[in-house]
């Protein structure tokens, strides 16, 4: 197992290198000039050029790439072209809101969708099943921002149980931190639970038809044990895969959720950096996000082993 993990981590290095090259190339090949933005409307060509030079944008592209690679290799992701803050500092600042949102949303998704999917399969074609499927479809169909506006209107404006937006860092006030995160997490979690619920239901339906489930029931085992120990455990691997995909979905979903709920997370950091062509932030943040994807996939792969003992990577 250890060898497998090390091999996977080593295999991630070329992946990250390819991501780095692609991101750097796309950013620098695409039109868009931070100097022209910063120079403003009244700047003439000479002023824009002066600013470009001061920003280091007139240096040859290979040199700029070398600086980027060298920085990444030494853990220095550079400075934001605009604010001057260190990119690693900005990412650290923004990571907490995004990871908190992702973890809480995922928790809500899993806690809601797995029981709902299992029960819907168990009670196939019942009213419960139909309600769960309608909700899952709704969660899939309603855009994040629309759901966000609805919950803000209901829970922030009408009954004022939650703040309409904003974020409080965990270290500042834990309860306020949770209070500010619940609504956006619900929005993201509700949408994320749709796919997991459907996948859980579908795989459970397959498994519930298997002989070993019939055997378990004929042995006189309780329905709960049959469902959870015999059926769900065998249905869990595809669900785990979907959860892995959902993490990716959450990371893209947080861009919208963070915007609607005014949360200063990585999603907004990336979109704002793209709109301003803050190259340093874009390339470094995408690299970090790519790393998160790789790590999440690795974790999911490892979890397969624990869920399904038949899987042996070392062999």
């Amino acid at each position, binding site marked *: 197992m250890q060898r497998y993990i090390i091999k996977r981590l080593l295999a991630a290095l070329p992946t990250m290198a390819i991501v780095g090259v692609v991101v750097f190339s796309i950013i620098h090949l*695409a*039109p*868009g*000039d*931070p100097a*022209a*933005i*910063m*120079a*403003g*409307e*009244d*700047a*003439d*060509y000479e*002023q*824009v050029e*002066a*600013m470009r*030079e*001061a920003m280091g944008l007139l240096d040859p592209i290979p040199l700029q790439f070398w600086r980027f690679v060298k920085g990444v290799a030494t853990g220095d992701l550079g400075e*934001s072209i*605009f*604010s*001057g*803050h260190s990119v690693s500092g*900005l990412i650290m*600042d*923004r990571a907490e809101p995004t990871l908190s949102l992702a973890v809480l949303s995922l928790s809500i998704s899993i806690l809601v969708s797995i029981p709902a999917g299992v029960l819907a399969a168990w009670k196939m074609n019942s009213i419960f099943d139909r309600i769960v499927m309608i909700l899952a479809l709704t969660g899939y169909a309603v855009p994040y*921002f629309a759901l966000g*506006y609805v919950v*803000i*209107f209901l829970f*922030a*404006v009408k009954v*004022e149980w939650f*703040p*309409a*937006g*904003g*974020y409080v860092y965990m270290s500042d006030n834990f309860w306020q931190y949770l209070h500010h995160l619940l609504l956006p997490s619900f929005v993201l979690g509700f949408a994320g639970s749709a796919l997991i619920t459907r996948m859980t239901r579908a795989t459970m339906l397959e498994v519930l038809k298997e002989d070993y489930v019939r055997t378990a029931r004929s042995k006189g085992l309780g329905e709960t044990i049959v469902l959870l120990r015999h059926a769900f455990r065998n249905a869990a691997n595809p669900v785990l895969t979907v959860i892995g995909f959902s993490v990716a979905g959450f990371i893209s979903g947080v861009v919208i959720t963070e*915007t*609607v*709920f*005014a949360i*200063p997370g990585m999603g*907004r*950091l990336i979109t*704002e950096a793209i*709109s*301003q*062509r*803050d190259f340093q932030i874009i390339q470094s943040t995408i690299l970090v996000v790519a790393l998160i994807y790789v790590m999440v996939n690795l974790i999911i792969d490892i979890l397969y082993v624990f869920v399904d003992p038949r899987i042996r990577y070392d062999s």
Partner: protein
Amino acid sequence: MKYFRLLPFVLVFAFVLGCSSDSASSSPAAPSAPQAPKASDASTKAQVQPAKPSGVASLAQTPTAPTAPTAGAVVKAKAAAGGIKKGGILVWALEAPVKAIDPVWTTATVTWRSSQMVYDSLQRLDVDFQYQNNGFEKWEMQPDGLKWTFTLRDNMKFHDGSKVTATDIQKSAFRWADRITAGIQMMKRTTEGNFSDKSISVVDASTFTLNMKEPYPVLSMGFSEAPFIMKASVAATDANSRVATDGYEGSTYISSGPYVLKKWVPGYRFEYEPHQGWTGMVPEGESVWVDGVNIVEVPDKTTLLAGLKTGKIDYATSGSAEQYLALKDDPNMGMKVSSPGTPILLLNHTKSPGKYLNWRKSLQAAQDAEKLMSVHGPAQLWQTCHAIFLCGTPGESAAGKDMYNQADLTKAKEYRDAFVAESGWDLDNDVVEMVSNTSYQTHRDRSLINIARFKEIGYKMNMTMTDWATAVTIRQNKDAWDIFHTGCCGIPSNNPVMNWYLSPKTYGWHTNQTIIDLQAQYTRELTDAGRAKVIDQVQQSYYDQVSHISPGQNSGYHVWRSSTHGAHDYSDSTRLTNTWMDK
């Protein structure tokens, strides 16, 4: 002896007479519009008094002073009577993310807004568009207009407690003038024309002189409300580079303004504390009443509205046009429509078709101003306006009005035919390149209206619709576009010199020599009447030559909860002095 009893009355009468005489002869508070020196003045220096921090009666007799008690006086009286609740943290939502906080390096509106709290300025525009001294205690100009001597306020201190000196102002002015149009224009006219001690000379710790090679009576255009005062060591930073951020919590991002920036988490919030001991120069007193200001970034307008409604946000400079009417009728909200700016259709004069006057005239004749301006939302937020220096301001002119908002397709086609005849333009194959962007909704909407309109004239159009960052990059290439949608210039820029699109060096690169000559003339005009005449001529030429096309003027608005008071009683600026909360 019995007449001796009248002596006190005689003395009082004489005193009152003396006071009123002083007041009547005092000059305008700021150097924006001095009258032409009279012949009898030739042997003496033109003495100009600053706006006095007290004395309503004498202020009321100066030409630019308000007749009612100033907002500062009202606040002061109210505070004395216990009518102002001190304290509280005011939460302010800005309209866009602040990317940089160096107000010289970037011209972004949001940076400007937030900087006004921290960085002091030498002068400020009041609600009547009059310049008032802020950093100056007084100033005087030699009769020939070539030497200006400025004395700084004695009590102006940086946030670290050190005194603002003339050297700080000199270095700050140099940095600012290396970057900002107003400063560039001013420095061009100094004796050396560069950043030398001979252009701006430090006389002593609180006095400096500005030495000009030609009279520059509209100096306030330069030393206006730009928040640029920095410590000399910080101002030594190259204007094209951002001031280092390492010390925004300590030493670098400091000035002498009413608030101290304590913390900035980019993309999240700013935290300001009052500058202890700070006093403003605005007539009749200016103070900080709150315990602090937090600026938060709320990118979504619906969330912003919810924040305002629930009291989580006290003040916003970011309301959307769609929400204007709902907020306006809300008894829990106060509102101010901010001073207007102008949408602009930039025309590229460097190549065909833009270099042909008839082509430009065809576009001008086709413009339907009502339709174009209606994209800015409710009627309270826009107006059709023929004045390129804004209607309802001192820059308003009626010159060339008949060429504005013609909405005449027949005439447009006549110009088109003339253009085709002179240029050989092939209406079936030659394409007019229009660039717009999706980052600004109103730019996008106007471009959609325009492209349909120009197709009706008979032009084959191609539109590049992209994000703002790409659009401004395309714009730098003279060969890449013919028409570009953007916006321009609020109140401080409403004159022929500071309007950037009238500069032949900036985008569009017009070649209207009349305007170029008039720009130089404008800065030399000594009287309001003279300047108004130049404005008339500039505007006439702008329309005659169709330098660019301005369909009207539009505004945003500032909105606050009714528990927030005084945010805009004195000024359009977002300095948040004399602002208090009773929540």
